Protein backbone atom coordinates (compact mmCIF):
# COMPACT_ATOMS: atom_id res chain seq x y z
CA UNK A 1 0.00 0.00 0.00
CA UNK A 2 2.73 2.42 1.04
CA UNK A 3 4.84 1.45 -1.96
CA UNK A 4 1.87 2.06 -4.26
CA UNK A 5 1.33 5.49 -2.72
CA UNK A 6 5.00 6.34 -3.15
CA UNK A 7 4.81 5.24 -6.77
CA UNK A 8 1.80 7.52 -7.38
CA UNK A 9 3.56 10.45 -5.72
CA UNK A 10 6.69 9.80 -7.75
CA UNK A 11 4.70 9.72 -10.99
CA UNK A 12 2.80 12.85 -10.00
CA UNK A 13 6.00 14.76 -9.27
CA UNK A 14 7.49 13.53 -12.52
CA UNK A 15 4.42 14.65 -14.51
CA UNK A 16 4.44 18.04 -12.75
CA UNK A 17 8.14 18.40 -13.52
CA UNK A 18 7.65 17.50 -17.18
CA UNK A 19 4.67 19.86 -17.57
CA UNK A 20 6.29 22.92 -15.98
CA UNK A 21 10.04 22.47 -16.27
CA UNK A 22 10.72 20.82 -19.63
CA UNK A 23 13.33 22.95 -21.38
CA UNK A 24 12.21 24.28 -24.77
CA UNK A 25 13.70 26.60 -27.39
CA UNK A 26 13.09 30.26 -26.56
CA UNK A 27 11.81 30.90 -30.09
CA UNK A 28 8.16 30.87 -28.95
CA UNK A 29 9.01 33.12 -26.02
CA UNK A 30 10.76 35.57 -28.36
CA UNK A 31 7.68 35.80 -30.61
CA UNK A 32 5.45 36.15 -27.54
CA UNK A 33 7.60 39.01 -26.25
CA UNK A 34 7.42 40.82 -29.59
CA UNK A 35 3.65 40.31 -29.86
CA UNK A 36 2.94 41.52 -26.31
CA UNK A 37 5.34 44.46 -26.59
CA UNK A 38 3.69 45.55 -29.84
CA UNK A 39 0.29 45.55 -28.14
CA UNK A 40 1.73 47.40 -25.12
CA UNK A 41 3.30 50.02 -27.38
CA UNK A 42 -0.02 50.54 -29.19
CA UNK A 43 -1.86 50.70 -25.86
CA UNK A 44 0.60 53.28 -24.55
CA UNK A 45 0.36 55.48 -27.63
CA UNK A 46 -3.43 55.27 -27.46
CA UNK A 47 -3.33 56.58 -23.90
CA UNK A 48 -1.75 59.88 -24.95
CA UNK A 49 -4.87 61.82 -26.07
CA UNK A 50 -6.58 61.40 -22.69
CA UNK A 51 -3.59 61.11 -20.35
CA UNK A 52 -4.27 64.16 -18.18
CA UNK A 53 -8.05 63.87 -18.41
CA UNK A 54 -7.85 60.40 -16.90
CA UNK A 55 -4.94 60.57 -14.50
CA UNK A 56 -4.23 64.12 -13.37
CA UNK A 57 -5.71 65.91 -10.38
CA UNK A 58 -7.46 68.24 -12.85
CA UNK A 59 -9.07 65.31 -14.63
CA UNK A 60 -12.32 63.38 -14.36
CA UNK A 61 -11.09 61.63 -11.19
CA UNK A 62 -9.13 64.15 -9.09
CA UNK A 63 -8.76 61.92 -6.00
CA UNK A 64 -7.03 58.56 -5.85
CA UNK A 65 -9.67 55.79 -5.60
CA UNK A 66 -10.27 54.15 -2.23
CA UNK A 67 -9.36 50.47 -2.43
CA UNK A 68 -10.65 49.84 1.09
CA UNK A 69 -7.64 48.29 2.70
CA UNK A 70 -6.70 46.03 -0.21
CA UNK A 71 -3.08 45.77 -1.24
CA UNK A 72 -3.72 47.48 -4.58
CA UNK A 73 -0.81 49.81 -5.17
CA UNK A 74 0.24 52.42 -7.69
CA UNK A 75 2.98 54.99 -8.01
CA UNK A 76 0.44 57.72 -8.75
CA UNK A 77 -0.93 57.32 -5.22
CA UNK A 78 2.40 58.53 -3.85
CA UNK A 79 3.32 60.87 -6.74
CA UNK A 80 0.05 62.40 -7.93
CA UNK A 81 1.38 65.49 -9.71
CA UNK A 82 0.99 66.17 -13.43
CA UNK A 83 4.76 65.94 -13.71
CA UNK A 84 4.67 62.41 -12.33
CA UNK A 85 1.92 61.46 -14.80
CA UNK A 86 4.11 62.75 -17.63
CA UNK A 87 7.21 61.02 -16.28
CA UNK A 88 5.51 57.64 -15.83
CA UNK A 89 3.98 57.91 -19.28
CA UNK A 90 7.34 58.46 -20.94
CA UNK A 91 8.95 55.72 -18.83
CA UNK A 92 6.16 53.38 -20.02
CA UNK A 93 6.67 54.45 -23.63
CA UNK A 94 10.44 54.01 -23.52
CA UNK A 95 10.23 50.73 -21.60
CA UNK A 96 7.71 49.28 -24.07
CA UNK A 97 10.07 50.13 -26.95
CA UNK A 98 12.92 48.43 -25.04
CA UNK A 99 10.70 45.41 -24.40
CA UNK A 100 9.90 45.19 -28.09
CA UNK A 101 13.58 45.35 -29.01
CA UNK A 102 14.58 43.06 -26.15
CA UNK A 103 16.96 45.61 -24.65
CA UNK A 104 17.44 45.29 -20.88
CA UNK A 105 14.41 43.08 -21.25
CA UNK A 106 13.72 42.12 -17.65
CA UNK A 107 14.06 45.71 -16.43
CA UNK A 108 11.90 46.94 -19.31
CA UNK A 109 9.16 44.41 -18.51
CA UNK A 110 9.35 45.43 -14.85
CA UNK A 111 8.97 49.14 -15.67
CA UNK A 112 6.13 48.48 -18.13
CA UNK A 113 4.31 46.44 -15.51
CA UNK A 114 4.81 49.01 -12.73
CA UNK A 115 3.62 51.88 -14.93
CA UNK A 116 0.62 49.98 -16.35
CA UNK A 117 -0.53 48.97 -12.87
CA UNK A 118 -0.04 52.53 -11.64
CA UNK A 119 -2.23 53.96 -14.41
CA UNK A 120 -4.79 51.16 -13.99
CA UNK A 121 -5.19 51.73 -10.25
CA UNK A 122 -5.24 55.52 -10.62
CA UNK A 123 -8.44 55.34 -12.70
CA UNK A 124 -10.06 51.91 -12.96
CA UNK A 125 -13.27 53.35 -14.50
CA UNK A 126 -11.71 53.74 -17.94
CA UNK A 127 -10.44 50.16 -18.26
CA UNK A 128 -11.95 47.07 -19.82
CA UNK A 129 -11.01 43.39 -19.57
CA UNK A 130 -8.60 43.76 -22.48
CA UNK A 131 -6.55 46.38 -20.63
CA UNK A 132 -6.21 44.03 -17.66
CA UNK A 133 -5.24 41.19 -20.00
CA UNK A 134 -2.40 43.26 -21.48
CA UNK A 135 -1.19 43.96 -17.93
CA UNK A 136 -1.38 40.24 -17.04
CA UNK A 137 0.59 39.24 -20.12
CA UNK A 138 3.34 41.69 -19.15
CA UNK A 139 3.39 40.13 -15.66
CA UNK A 140 3.91 36.67 -17.16
CA UNK A 141 6.57 38.08 -19.48
CA UNK A 142 8.33 39.51 -16.46
CA UNK A 143 8.71 35.98 -15.07
CA UNK A 144 10.29 34.68 -18.27
CA UNK A 145 13.80 34.99 -19.71
CA UNK A 146 12.20 36.97 -22.53
CA UNK A 147 15.42 38.61 -23.67
CA UNK A 148 17.30 35.36 -24.25
CA UNK A 149 16.51 35.20 -27.97
CA UNK A 150 15.88 37.53 -30.88
CA UNK A 151 16.73 40.56 -28.82
CA UNK A 152 19.28 43.32 -28.38
CA UNK A 153 20.29 41.57 -25.16
CA UNK A 154 21.14 38.49 -27.23
CA UNK A 155 22.91 40.58 -29.87
CA UNK A 156 25.16 42.10 -27.21
CA UNK A 157 26.42 38.60 -26.37
CA UNK A 158 28.66 36.71 -28.88
CA UNK A 159 27.05 37.72 -32.17
CA UNK A 160 27.56 34.44 -33.93
CA UNK A 161 24.97 33.00 -31.58
CA UNK A 162 22.31 35.61 -32.34
CA UNK A 163 20.09 33.22 -34.29
CA UNK A 164 20.22 30.54 -31.63
CA UNK A 165 17.37 29.94 -29.23
CA UNK A 166 18.73 28.67 -25.91
CA UNK A 167 16.52 26.15 -24.17
CA UNK A 168 14.81 27.32 -21.00
CA UNK A 169 12.16 25.87 -18.68
CA UNK A 170 8.70 26.27 -20.14
CA UNK A 171 6.81 27.29 -16.98
CA UNK A 172 6.22 31.02 -17.77
CA UNK A 173 4.68 30.06 -21.12
CA UNK A 174 2.63 27.35 -19.42
CA UNK A 175 1.22 29.99 -17.05
CA UNK A 176 0.00 32.00 -20.05
CA UNK A 177 -1.50 28.84 -21.58
CA UNK A 178 -3.38 28.12 -18.36
CA UNK A 179 -4.49 31.76 -18.22
CA UNK A 180 -5.92 31.53 -21.75
CA UNK A 181 -7.78 28.36 -20.83
CA UNK A 182 -9.19 29.96 -17.66
CA UNK A 183 -10.19 33.06 -19.63
CA UNK A 184 -12.44 31.10 -22.00
CA UNK A 185 -13.90 28.67 -19.48
CA UNK A 186 -14.84 31.54 -17.14
CA UNK A 187 -16.21 33.56 -20.07
CA UNK A 188 -18.52 30.69 -21.04
CA UNK A 189 -19.53 30.07 -17.43
CA UNK A 190 -20.43 33.73 -16.95
CA UNK A 191 -22.40 33.80 -20.20
CA UNK A 192 -24.52 30.68 -19.86
CA UNK A 193 -26.14 32.17 -16.75
CA UNK A 194 -27.64 34.95 -18.90
CA UNK A 195 -30.98 34.87 -20.71
CA UNK A 196 -29.76 36.16 -24.05
CA UNK A 197 -26.92 33.62 -24.33
CA UNK A 198 -29.54 30.92 -23.78
CA UNK A 199 -32.16 32.21 -26.18
CA UNK A 200 -29.52 32.90 -28.82
CA UNK A 201 -29.93 36.69 -29.13
CA UNK A 202 -26.85 37.91 -27.20
CA UNK A 203 -24.61 38.63 -30.19
CA UNK A 204 -27.38 40.56 -31.93
CA UNK A 205 -27.62 42.86 -28.90
CA UNK A 206 -23.84 43.13 -28.53
CA UNK A 207 -23.47 44.22 -32.16
CA UNK A 208 -26.23 46.84 -31.88
CA UNK A 209 -25.00 48.66 -28.75
CA UNK A 210 -24.39 51.99 -30.43
CA UNK A 211 -21.73 53.29 -28.04
CA UNK A 212 -19.71 50.10 -28.49
CA UNK A 213 -20.13 49.56 -32.22
CA UNK A 214 -17.14 50.17 -34.42
CA UNK A 215 -17.63 49.35 -38.10
CA UNK A 216 -21.16 48.81 -39.42
CA UNK A 217 -22.63 45.32 -39.36
CA UNK A 218 -25.43 44.79 -41.92
CA UNK A 219 -28.90 44.85 -40.37
CA UNK A 220 -29.80 41.52 -41.97
CA UNK A 221 -27.16 40.01 -39.68
CA UNK A 222 -28.29 41.66 -36.46
CA UNK A 223 -32.04 41.55 -37.17
CA UNK A 224 -32.21 37.90 -38.20
CA UNK A 225 -33.10 35.56 -35.36
CA UNK A 226 -31.52 32.62 -37.16
CA UNK A 227 -28.21 34.40 -37.78
CA UNK A 228 -28.27 35.79 -34.21
CA UNK A 229 -28.75 32.22 -32.88
CA UNK A 230 -25.95 30.92 -35.07
CA UNK A 231 -23.53 33.67 -33.96
CA UNK A 232 -24.47 33.42 -30.27
CA UNK A 233 -24.24 29.64 -29.96
CA UNK A 234 -21.20 29.66 -32.27
CA UNK A 235 -19.43 32.09 -29.94
CA UNK A 236 -20.13 29.88 -26.93
CA UNK A 237 -19.00 26.79 -28.84
CA UNK A 238 -15.75 28.41 -29.96
CA UNK A 239 -14.96 29.79 -26.48
CA UNK A 240 -15.65 26.46 -24.81
CA UNK A 241 -13.61 24.62 -27.46
CA UNK A 242 -10.61 26.87 -26.94
CA UNK A 243 -10.86 26.60 -23.16
CA UNK A 244 -10.72 22.81 -23.25
CA UNK A 245 -9.50 21.54 -26.61
CA UNK A 246 -6.52 23.87 -26.77
CA UNK A 247 -4.78 21.22 -24.63
CA UNK A 248 -5.21 18.68 -27.41
CA UNK A 249 -2.19 18.79 -29.69
CA UNK A 250 -4.13 17.78 -32.83
CA UNK A 251 -7.12 20.06 -32.34
CA UNK A 252 -5.14 23.03 -30.97
CA UNK A 253 -4.42 24.75 -34.34
CA UNK A 254 -8.04 24.41 -35.42
CA UNK A 255 -9.61 25.80 -32.25
CA UNK A 256 -7.09 28.64 -32.20
CA UNK A 257 -7.90 29.40 -35.83
CA UNK A 258 -11.56 29.65 -34.84
CA UNK A 259 -10.47 31.92 -31.97
CA UNK A 260 -8.55 34.16 -34.38
CA UNK A 261 -11.63 34.54 -36.59
CA UNK A 262 -13.81 35.23 -33.53
CA UNK A 263 -11.51 37.95 -32.21
CA UNK A 264 -10.97 39.59 -35.58
CA UNK A 265 -14.77 39.69 -35.89
CA UNK A 266 -15.04 41.26 -32.43
CA UNK A 267 -12.35 43.81 -33.29
CA UNK A 268 -14.24 44.72 -36.48
CA UNK A 269 -17.66 45.10 -34.92
CA UNK A 270 -17.11 46.16 -31.32
CA UNK A 271 -15.17 48.99 -29.71
CA UNK A 272 -13.17 46.87 -27.27
CA UNK A 273 -9.80 48.58 -27.65
CA UNK A 274 -6.91 46.16 -27.41
CA UNK A 275 -8.86 43.17 -26.09
CA UNK A 276 -8.73 41.14 -29.31
CA UNK A 277 -5.09 41.94 -30.00
CA UNK A 278 -4.11 41.00 -26.44
CA UNK A 279 -5.86 37.64 -26.81
CA UNK A 280 -4.16 37.03 -30.15
CA UNK A 281 -0.79 37.90 -28.58
CA UNK A 282 -1.52 35.33 -25.87
CA UNK A 283 -2.23 32.70 -28.55
CA UNK A 284 1.44 32.94 -29.59
CA UNK A 285 2.42 30.83 -26.58
CA UNK A 286 0.73 27.85 -28.24
CA UNK A 287 3.05 27.96 -31.27
CA UNK A 288 5.40 24.95 -30.94
CA UNK A 289 9.03 26.06 -30.49
CA UNK A 290 10.13 24.24 -33.69
CA UNK A 291 7.46 26.04 -35.71
CA UNK A 292 8.40 29.38 -34.13
CA UNK A 293 12.07 28.76 -34.90
CA UNK A 294 11.29 27.90 -38.55
CA UNK A 295 9.08 30.95 -38.83
CA UNK A 296 11.79 33.25 -37.48
CA UNK A 297 14.59 31.75 -39.56
CA UNK A 298 12.57 31.69 -42.78
CA UNK A 299 11.61 35.33 -42.23
CA UNK A 300 15.31 36.13 -41.71
CA UNK A 301 16.24 34.30 -44.92
CA UNK A 302 13.48 36.00 -46.90
CA UNK A 303 14.51 39.45 -45.62
CA UNK A 304 18.16 38.55 -46.31
CA UNK A 305 17.35 37.57 -49.90
CA UNK A 306 15.40 40.80 -50.35
CA UNK A 307 18.29 42.94 -49.16
CA UNK A 308 20.79 41.00 -51.31
CA UNK A 309 18.47 41.33 -54.30
CA UNK A 310 18.26 45.06 -53.71
CA UNK A 311 22.02 45.55 -53.60
CA UNK A 312 22.75 45.21 -57.38
CA UNK A 313 19.85 47.49 -58.26
CA UNK A 314 21.23 50.12 -55.90
CA UNK A 315 24.64 49.69 -57.50
CA UNK A 316 23.12 49.84 -60.98
CA UNK A 317 21.52 53.20 -60.20
CA UNK A 318 24.81 54.78 -59.25
CA UNK A 319 26.75 56.79 -61.86
CA UNK A 320 29.21 54.52 -63.69
CA UNK A 321 32.29 56.38 -62.49
CA UNK A 322 31.41 55.93 -58.85
CA UNK A 323 30.90 52.16 -58.90
Amino acid at each position, binding site marked *: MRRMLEEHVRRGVSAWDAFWFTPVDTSTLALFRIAVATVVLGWTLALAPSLYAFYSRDGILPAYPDYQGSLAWGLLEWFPSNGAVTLFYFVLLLASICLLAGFATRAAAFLVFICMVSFAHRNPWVLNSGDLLVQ*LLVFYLLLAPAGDALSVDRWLKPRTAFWEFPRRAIWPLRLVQVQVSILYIVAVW*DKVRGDTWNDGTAVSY*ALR*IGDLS*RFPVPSFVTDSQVIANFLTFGTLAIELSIGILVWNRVLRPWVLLLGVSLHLGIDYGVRVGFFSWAVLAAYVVFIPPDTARSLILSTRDRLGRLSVANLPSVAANRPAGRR
Partner: protein
Amino acid sequence: MQQRLENSVAGRAAISVFLLITLASLVVWNMPNSEVQRKSLKVVRPYVTALSLEQNWGVFAPDPRRETLDFLARVRYADGSEEEVRMPTGGSVVGAYWDYHWWKWVESVTNDQRDGLWKPAAVWFGRRATTDTRQPVRVTLVRRWYQLFPPGPGPSRGPWQEAEYYTLRITPSDQGVR
Protein backbone atom coordinates in the same frame (compact mmCIF):
# COMPACT_ATOMS: atom_id res chain seq x y z
CA MET B 1 20.28 33.38 -12.08
CA GLN B 2 16.82 32.16 -13.17
CA GLN B 3 18.37 29.28 -15.08
CA ARG B 4 20.37 28.25 -12.02
CA LEU B 5 17.17 28.35 -9.95
CA GLU B 6 15.32 26.22 -12.49
CA ASN B 7 18.11 23.66 -12.59
CA SER B 8 18.27 23.09 -8.82
CA VAL B 9 15.84 20.96 -6.84
CA ALA B 10 15.32 23.68 -4.26
CA GLY B 11 14.76 26.25 -7.00
CA ARG B 12 12.18 24.08 -8.72
CA ALA B 13 10.45 23.50 -5.42
CA ALA B 14 10.28 27.27 -4.80
CA ILE B 15 8.92 27.92 -8.31
CA SER B 16 6.41 25.10 -7.83
CA VAL B 17 5.14 26.70 -4.62
CA PHE B 18 4.75 30.00 -6.48
CA LEU B 19 2.90 28.23 -9.31
CA LEU B 20 0.57 26.39 -6.94
CA ILE B 21 -0.30 29.57 -5.02
CA THR B 22 -0.79 31.56 -8.23
CA LEU B 23 -2.96 28.90 -9.89
CA ALA B 24 -5.07 28.44 -6.76
CA SER B 25 -5.52 32.22 -6.53
CA LEU B 26 -6.59 32.46 -10.17
CA VAL B 27 -9.09 29.63 -9.72
CA VAL B 28 -10.59 31.23 -6.61
CA TRP B 29 -10.69 34.70 -8.19
CA ASN B 30 -12.49 33.37 -11.26
CA MET B 31 -14.85 30.88 -9.61
CA PRO B 32 -18.60 31.58 -9.43
CA ASN B 33 -19.85 33.93 -6.75
CA SER B 34 -20.47 31.56 -3.86
CA GLU B 35 -19.84 31.03 -0.17
CA VAL B 36 -16.68 29.04 -0.97
CA GLN B 37 -15.39 31.92 -3.09
CA ARG B 38 -16.23 34.57 -0.51
CA LYS B 39 -14.38 32.66 2.21
CA SER B 40 -11.41 31.82 -0.02
CA LEU B 41 -11.15 35.39 -1.29
CA LYS B 42 -10.30 36.58 2.21
CA VAL B 43 -7.08 34.59 1.90
CA VAL B 44 -6.47 35.07 -1.81
CA ARG B 45 -7.35 38.73 -2.34
CA PRO B 46 -4.19 40.21 -0.77
CA TYR B 47 -2.02 38.01 -3.00
CA VAL B 48 -3.97 38.81 -6.17
CA THR B 49 -4.15 42.54 -5.53
CA ALA B 50 -0.52 42.82 -4.43
CA LEU B 51 0.62 41.17 -7.68
CA SER B 52 -2.10 42.98 -9.68
CA LEU B 53 -3.50 39.75 -11.08
CA GLU B 54 -7.09 41.05 -10.94
CA GLN B 55 -9.12 39.89 -13.92
CA ASN B 56 -12.67 39.82 -15.19
CA TRP B 57 -13.67 37.73 -18.19
CA GLY B 58 -17.39 38.43 -18.04
CA VAL B 59 -17.40 40.34 -21.33
CA PHE B 60 -21.06 40.79 -22.39
CA ALA B 61 -21.96 38.45 -19.53
CA PRO B 62 -24.25 37.34 -18.10
CA ASP B 63 -26.05 39.40 -20.77
CA PRO B 64 -24.96 42.20 -23.08
CA ARG B 65 -26.49 45.57 -22.34
CA ARG B 66 -29.90 45.97 -23.97
CA GLU B 67 -29.56 49.70 -24.48
CA THR B 68 -27.29 52.16 -26.22
CA LEU B 69 -25.84 54.81 -23.93
CA ASP B 70 -24.83 58.38 -24.59
CA PHE B 71 -23.66 61.09 -22.26
CA LEU B 72 -23.25 64.85 -22.44
CA ALA B 73 -22.85 67.85 -20.19
CA ARG B 74 -25.28 70.74 -20.61
CA VAL B 75 -23.44 73.94 -19.75
CA ARG B 76 -25.17 77.19 -18.89
CA TYR B 77 -23.04 80.34 -19.16
CA ALA B 78 -23.18 83.57 -17.19
CA ASP B 79 -24.79 85.34 -20.17
CA GLY B 80 -27.73 82.87 -20.06
CA SER B 81 -26.74 80.88 -23.14
CA GLU B 82 -26.44 77.08 -23.12
CA GLU B 83 -24.18 74.62 -24.86
CA GLU B 84 -23.89 70.85 -24.96
CA VAL B 85 -20.35 69.61 -24.34
CA ARG B 86 -19.33 66.06 -25.18
CA MET B 87 -16.34 63.97 -24.27
CA PRO B 88 -13.55 63.55 -26.79
CA THR B 89 -14.13 60.76 -29.31
CA GLY B 90 -12.18 59.44 -32.28
CA GLY B 91 -12.99 57.73 -35.55
CA SER B 92 -13.66 54.05 -36.13
CA VAL B 93 -10.24 53.12 -37.51
CA VAL B 94 -7.65 54.60 -35.12
CA GLY B 95 -9.87 56.54 -32.72
CA ALA B 96 -11.56 53.34 -31.54
CA TYR B 97 -8.29 52.35 -29.89
CA TRP B 98 -8.31 55.32 -27.55
CA ASP B 99 -11.91 56.49 -27.15
CA TYR B 100 -13.10 53.11 -25.86
CA HIS B 101 -11.69 54.24 -22.51
CA TRP B 102 -14.18 57.14 -22.56
CA TRP B 103 -17.09 54.90 -23.46
CA LYS B 104 -16.11 52.57 -20.64
CA TRP B 105 -16.17 55.56 -18.30
CA VAL B 106 -19.64 56.52 -19.57
CA GLU B 107 -20.97 53.18 -18.29
CA SER B 108 -19.86 54.21 -14.81
CA VAL B 109 -20.54 57.96 -14.80
CA THR B 110 -24.16 57.39 -15.86
CA ASN B 111 -24.64 54.73 -13.19
CA ASP B 112 -26.55 55.71 -10.02
CA GLN B 113 -24.24 53.54 -7.93
CA ARG B 114 -21.21 55.55 -9.03
CA ASP B 115 -22.41 58.98 -7.91
CA GLY B 116 -18.91 59.77 -6.61
CA LEU B 117 -17.87 60.29 -10.24
CA TRP B 118 -20.53 62.92 -10.97
CA LYS B 119 -19.12 66.05 -9.36
CA PRO B 120 -15.58 65.61 -10.73
CA ALA B 121 -17.11 65.00 -14.17
CA ALA B 122 -19.20 68.16 -13.96
CA VAL B 123 -16.18 70.20 -12.82
CA TRP B 124 -14.09 68.79 -15.66
CA PHE B 125 -16.72 69.54 -18.31
CA GLY B 126 -17.22 73.02 -16.83
CA ARG B 127 -13.51 73.67 -17.12
CA ARG B 128 -13.53 72.34 -20.68
CA ALA B 129 -16.31 74.77 -21.59
CA THR B 130 -14.59 77.76 -20.06
CA THR B 131 -13.08 80.35 -22.41
CA ASP B 132 -11.65 83.81 -21.87
CA THR B 133 -15.00 85.31 -22.74
CA ARG B 134 -17.47 82.69 -21.45
CA GLN B 135 -17.77 81.44 -17.89
CA PRO B 136 -20.03 78.49 -17.07
CA VAL B 137 -22.31 78.95 -14.08
CA ARG B 138 -24.03 75.59 -14.16
CA VAL B 139 -23.19 72.15 -15.50
CA THR B 140 -25.84 69.47 -15.82
CA LEU B 141 -24.96 65.86 -16.60
CA VAL B 142 -27.31 64.21 -19.04
CA ARG B 143 -27.78 60.51 -19.61
CA ARG B 144 -29.22 59.56 -22.99
CA TRP B 145 -30.22 56.08 -24.09
CA TYR B 146 -32.41 53.98 -26.32
CA GLN B 147 -33.68 50.45 -25.77
CA LEU B 148 -32.62 47.62 -28.05
CA PHE B 149 -35.44 45.24 -29.00
CA PRO B 150 -34.94 41.52 -29.66
CA PRO B 151 -33.91 40.57 -33.20
CA GLY B 152 -36.71 39.62 -35.56
CA PRO B 153 -39.63 41.39 -37.20
CA GLY B 154 -40.51 44.87 -35.98
CA PRO B 155 -38.36 47.82 -34.99
CA SER B 156 -34.89 47.01 -33.71
CA ARG B 157 -34.73 49.88 -31.20
CA GLY B 158 -36.79 52.42 -29.32
CA PRO B 159 -36.57 56.22 -29.46
CA TRP B 160 -33.82 58.25 -27.79
CA GLN B 161 -34.66 59.18 -24.23
CA GLU B 162 -32.79 61.44 -21.85
CA ALA B 163 -32.60 62.33 -18.18
CA GLU B 164 -30.71 65.11 -16.42
CA TYR B 165 -29.31 63.45 -13.32
CA TYR B 166 -26.85 65.83 -11.72
CA THR B 167 -26.42 69.60 -11.64
CA LEU B 168 -23.44 71.52 -10.36
CA ARG B 169 -23.42 75.27 -9.82
CA ILE B 170 -19.98 76.54 -10.67
CA THR B 171 -18.27 79.17 -8.55
CA PRO B 172 -15.32 81.16 -9.91
CA SER B 173 -12.87 78.87 -8.17
CA ASP B 174 -14.55 75.78 -9.59
CA GLN B 175 -15.63 74.84 -6.07
CA GLY B 176 -19.18 73.99 -6.89
CA VAL B 177 -22.09 73.15 -4.61
CA ARG B 178 -24.98 70.98 -5.48
